[in-house]
């Protein structure tokens, strides 16, 4: 039975090629779109996710992390009243403008963090040292955006919101979802760039004592303070992701493309398997006359669909993984986590087997008496 399925599948090379191209296309398209989705999602929230903070305190009713409104640092002392708090630091996270050495303006995302504590600090520093950010006006940028920011080496100076700034280091792989690259600096420097009052901050980030449940600490802090909202890391990152991915519609677009990719796959596979079934209808009728059960014929068809899916997936996923690897060199990362790779495998197989249902329906209706017809 398996050999019949296999041989029939490989007998018609052209049809097999069409089927496989369809599946490969579908796998590549949907995995790259989903990889983009994951990449975008990470880009929106990596800085938050890797900040090592347990809780965020923000002004009331922000819609996303770049939406903070200044509030008094007195809140910091109010929060410190809780004995379960290990540490609290001030943080700035906001869009602003950057004037390149050549005078052109571009948008950036300025991240000002507490150098002593380090929550929200850049990771993967490839050039320079984090302590260098202690210098007034010092900033660190992501090397993927060197061109965009008009900077090629350490020591170059630019302007941020009209203030002089000096590049003291580079990071590697900290992407931005928007067109504004991340720029890291000390909280103090950021305060200056924004002209924020000495006693004001945009956010407070909280590290809980070991063993303290962030959820319960959140409730406690919330009850200690008014005019601010407290978020856990999960809440804060998902607020950020949801805003950028769904609030702006950007994520929906890639998800729709991924879905369309799968749909194309289903249609192509269903179509080629169906036409293969129709072409072999006489053979299926002969099998039926010979005493094969419908179930036996289903197995032949499903095996063919399964094998097509297997080969198509292997080729398609190899291409997608290659593209994903190449993409990590650029500003738009296509990230294919293990779950996605495995999930798409099952989805592809399901799609191919599902697509063969139309054909199964066809062989069920074959009248074995057709075998004697000319």
């Amino acid at each position, binding site marked *: 039975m398996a050999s019949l399925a296999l041989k*029939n599948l490989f007998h018609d090379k052209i049809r097999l090629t069409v089927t496989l191209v369809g599946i490969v296309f579908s796998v590549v398209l949907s995995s790259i779109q989903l990889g983009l989705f994951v990449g975008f999602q990470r880009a929106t929230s990596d800085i938050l996710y890797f900040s090592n903070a347990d809780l965020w305190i923000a002004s009331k009713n922000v819609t996303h992390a770049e939406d903070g409104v200044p509030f008094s640092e007195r809140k910091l002392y109010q929060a410190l009243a809780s004995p379960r708090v290990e540490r609290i630091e001030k943080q700035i996270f906001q869009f602003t403008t950057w004037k390149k050495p050549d005078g052109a303006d571009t948008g950036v995302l300025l991240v000002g963090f507490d150098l002593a504590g380090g929550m929200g600090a850049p990771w993967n520093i490839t050039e320079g040292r984090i302590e260098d950010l202690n210098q007034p006006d010092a900033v660190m940028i992501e090397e993927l955006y060197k061109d965009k920011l008009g900077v090629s080496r350490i020591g170059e100076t630019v302007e941020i919101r009209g203030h002089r700034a000096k590049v003291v280091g580079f990071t590697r792989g900290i992407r931005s979802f928007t067109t504004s690259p991340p720029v890291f600096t000390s909280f103090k420097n950021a305060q200056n760039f924004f002209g924020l009052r000495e006693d004001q901050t945009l956010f407070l980030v909280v590290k809980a004592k070991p063993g303290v449940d962030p959820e319960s600490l959140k409730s406690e802090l919330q009850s200690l303070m008014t005019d601010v909202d407290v978020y856990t890391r999960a809440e804060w990152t998902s607020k950020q992701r949801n805003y950028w991915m769904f609030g702006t519609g950007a994520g929906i677009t890639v998800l729709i493309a991924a879905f369309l990719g799968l749909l194309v796959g289903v249609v192509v596979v269903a179509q080629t398997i169906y036409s293969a079934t129709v072409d072999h209808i006489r053979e299926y009728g002969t*099998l039926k*006359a010979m005493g094969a059960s419908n179930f036996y014929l289903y197995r032949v068809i499903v095996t063919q669909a399964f094998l097509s899916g297997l080969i198509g997936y292997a080729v398609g996923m190899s291409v997608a993984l290659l593209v994903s690897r190449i993409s990590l060199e650029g500003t738009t990362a296509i990230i294919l986590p293990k779950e996605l790779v495995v999930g798409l495998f099952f989805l592809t197989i399901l799609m191919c087997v599902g697509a063969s249902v139309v054909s199964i329906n066809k062989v069920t209706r074959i009248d074995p008496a057709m075998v004697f017809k000319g």
Partner: protein
Amino acid sequence: MPDRERIMKSIEVKNLVKTYGAAETAVHALKGVDLDVFEGELQLLVGASGSGKTTLVSIMGGILSATSGSCRIRGAETIGLGQKQLQKIRLDNIGFIFQGFNLFPALTARENVEVALDLKGFRGAEMRRRAGALLERVGLGAKLDAYPADLSGGQKQRVAIARALAGEPRIILADEPTAALDSFSGKLIMDLLQELAREKNRAVVVVTHDNRIFDYADRIVRIDDGRISERIMPEKGMAHHHGMMHTTFEPAAAV
């Protein structure tokens, strides 16, 4: 001795009626056919185009439902059975041979036979051995790995016979097996079918237009517009027959 008669009858058709379609468009393909096919007998079914030959063998082979009447395959009534039961009866009792061979083009001669053996539950080395032996039996021992496209019509039909013989069915039904063949190949095929009837004591029914092969028949049944019009027992065919056969049916006579 009704029991003995029952056993000897491989196929017993009584008052079989088949009407295709309904009302104005109804085609009365069979209008009450009585027919017996005995073990060890090669029976030819002849008649004009559209007389109902294919319809009759299709019902006898359990691949077409009848409108009314009775058809017993080795004693078991098949009219009114469901798809599942008919499938089992075909699997256990019947080998089909077709005018167009109906081989699987993607499979070699051996693999074509193996598909049938697989259906009958043979696997692995035993399946391979049997496929080889069956092809040997039809004189294609040297063509085991040839694809249908590389075989002549006669060779293809012999592969089809080997396939029909998988699992040693007691009944072989062939619709125009020689129509697509030259007379030499046709003779070869009929030799094989005759041998199956004689030596293996199978019931073999061959639908044909081909008067070149009438000599092979133990009995020729003529069908005319859905009715049996003539039953001929050629002398030659009779001479080969074992004694018991003679006692069980009427001397050749028109009905």
